[in-house]
């Protein structure tokens, strides 16, 4: 992107991450695992303005490696905008001229919100593995505290892809009256054993790295290698057979012919190495362990007895979207959510978007998503008599 056109009309421009701290002792937050945690700091960003009627707030929920920085740029020299910049901004699907958009780093993250990387005030050392296990419900509880702090009394909508969708589901279950509508994208009510298996391989790569030291690597050499491998595995699961054919084929990088050695020569290999190396610079190994486990434990059917009972008290209008080539969070899992909501006579729609991008589609299929999200949000402002509020 040209520097002069960087902050074009579709960009929210320069944004800043803000912080909110609560749960100071002795008022620590009680977690689902029974342990108490506090103080808790939440990193968040907001775009647009909360209307006088306070009826235009939309909460964006990020996925495993995301953060509060969903749109715009932190500095004029940033190479990349926020992670969902193609969807959030003036005139975009989440139109910042119309809506008040909030995105926060979830509890247990390593992007400003309290997590295992944070220094424990009681010991003066990083929490590391002494950090309690966080659940999706805990994350949502913290997000609700942020809403209260921001004076948001109800959400016009919320949207989350992948692990963000898990939070979205928990939101409509825990705070039905607070959430008018929800968009659950490429998500699930529980991971498949296949997805848990990939998570376990990633965790194993980290915990067998000699630098991991049972999670106590702060101020020392970090388990780079393990975290990079975990990310490489993750990336394979985010793509699809077709998208890998299209993106890399069997092309070689910097070579005309096979070298008959073990250097990485296929384009797909160098891509994965690059992704792994990049990830190590911006993410934390223990956090990766915690968050993948958080996802593995998420299971609405087991928590509530059945998926049908989980959705019993939902009042939000729900839109579930999946992508045809997503084999990590496959369409059948989205359909299970829709089926259970329909069994409860809830207002739910389901869209299955044809895409070859695999799980990554939720970040890449902006054009498709924009059309759907725009239609969905526009209608929320229309009352039963067809008049716009």
């Amino acid at each position, binding site marked *: 992107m040209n520097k002069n056109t960087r902050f074009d009309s579709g960009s929210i421009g320069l944004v800043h991450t803000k912080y909110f701290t609560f749960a100071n002792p002795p008022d620590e937050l009680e977690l689902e695992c029974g342990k108490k945690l506090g103080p808790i700091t939440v990193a968040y960003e907001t775009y647009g303005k909360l209307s006088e009627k306070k009826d235009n707030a939309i909460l964006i929920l990020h996925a495993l490696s995301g953060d509060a920085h969903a749109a715009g740029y932190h500095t004029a020299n940033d190479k990349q905008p926020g992670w969902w910049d193609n969807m959030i901004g003036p005139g975009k699907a989440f139109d910042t001229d119309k809506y008040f958009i909030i995105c926060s780093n979830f509890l247990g993250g390593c992007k400003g919100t309290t997590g295992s990387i944070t220094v424990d005030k009681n010991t003066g050392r990083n929490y590391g593995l002494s950090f309690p296990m966080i659940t999706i419900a805990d994350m949502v509880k913290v997000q609700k505290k942020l809403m209260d702090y921001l004076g948001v009394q109800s959400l016009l909508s919320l949207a989350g892809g992948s692990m963000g969708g898990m939070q979205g589901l928990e939101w409509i279950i825990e705070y039905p009256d607070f959430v008018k509508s929800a968009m659950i994208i490429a998500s699930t009510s529980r991971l498949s054993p296949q997805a848990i298996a990939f998570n376990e391989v990633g965790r194993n790569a980290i915990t067998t790295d000699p630098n991991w030291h049972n999670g106590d690597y702060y101020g020392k050499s970090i388990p780079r290698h393990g975290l990079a491998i975990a990310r490489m595995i993750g990336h394979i699961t985010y793509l699809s057979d077709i998208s890998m054919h299209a993106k890399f084929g069997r092309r070689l990088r910097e070579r005309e012919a096979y070298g008959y050695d073990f250097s990485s020569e296929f384009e797909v290999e160098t891509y994965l190495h690059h992704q792994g190396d990049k990830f190590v610079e911006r993410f934390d190994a223990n956090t990766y362990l915690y968050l993948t486990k958080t996802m593995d434990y998420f299971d609405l059917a087991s928590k509530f007895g059945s998926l049908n009972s989980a959705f019993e008290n939902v009042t939000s209008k729900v*839109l579930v979207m999946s992508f045809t080539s997503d084999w990590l969070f496959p369409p059948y899992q989205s*359909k299970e959510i*829709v*089926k259970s909501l*329909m*069994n409860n*006579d809830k*207002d*739910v*729609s*389901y*869209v*299955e*978007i*044809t895409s070859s991008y695999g799980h990554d589609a939720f970040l890449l299929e902006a054009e498709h998503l924009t*059309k*759907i999200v725009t*239609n*969905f949000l*526009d*209608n*929320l402002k*229309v009352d039963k008599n067809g008049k716009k509020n």
Partner: protein
Amino acid sequence: MARKIESLVFHADYEKIISIVEQDSKVLDLGCGTGELLFRLIRNKNVKGRGVEIDQANILKCIGKGLSVFQGNIDEGLKEYQDKSYDYVILNQTLQVTHKPQFVLKEMLRVGRKAIVSFPNFAYWKIRAQLFFHGTMPKTETLPFEWYETPNIKLVTIKDFRKFCKDNKIKILQEIFIGDNEKTLRSVCLANILSSEGLFVITDSCATD
């Protein structure tokens, strides 16, 4: 299921279907297109309605109308829906584009207490005449396609449908013949010739009125 073309939606049918459907009932509209019928059923009859549609452009229009819609292929069945969970399951001008009409109808009667089915009548005299006098594949307002591009693959007549119901122990609760002099049609044989469309309300349950 092939895509239903928008021009194939007949507004005369809408009025008939809306008049049949009872106030405040629960309705599932299969192949709901842009959701026009569903939207009107909700507005006029206060139904709790849901649609199933295969085409994404149509789905978008449904979502824009605020409807509950499920993107799916009805030829794959209605496994997302529980037995007798709807008062009406509607298949409006879509039967002839399904690959497995028998299976689709069976699924409709499993999920709905009643099913409303409408289709272009292939025994309509204008169709017979084209085939008889011209020797060409018939094209009419209700079946406007050339033979090589038509989505209509399971064409049926009013007589065929009645026989189908009898053979499959399906009870016909109501039949409406749409076409020339529709009000005076008493004989089914005549209806089969003079009607461009047939509209049936059917059920598989004995407990229905």
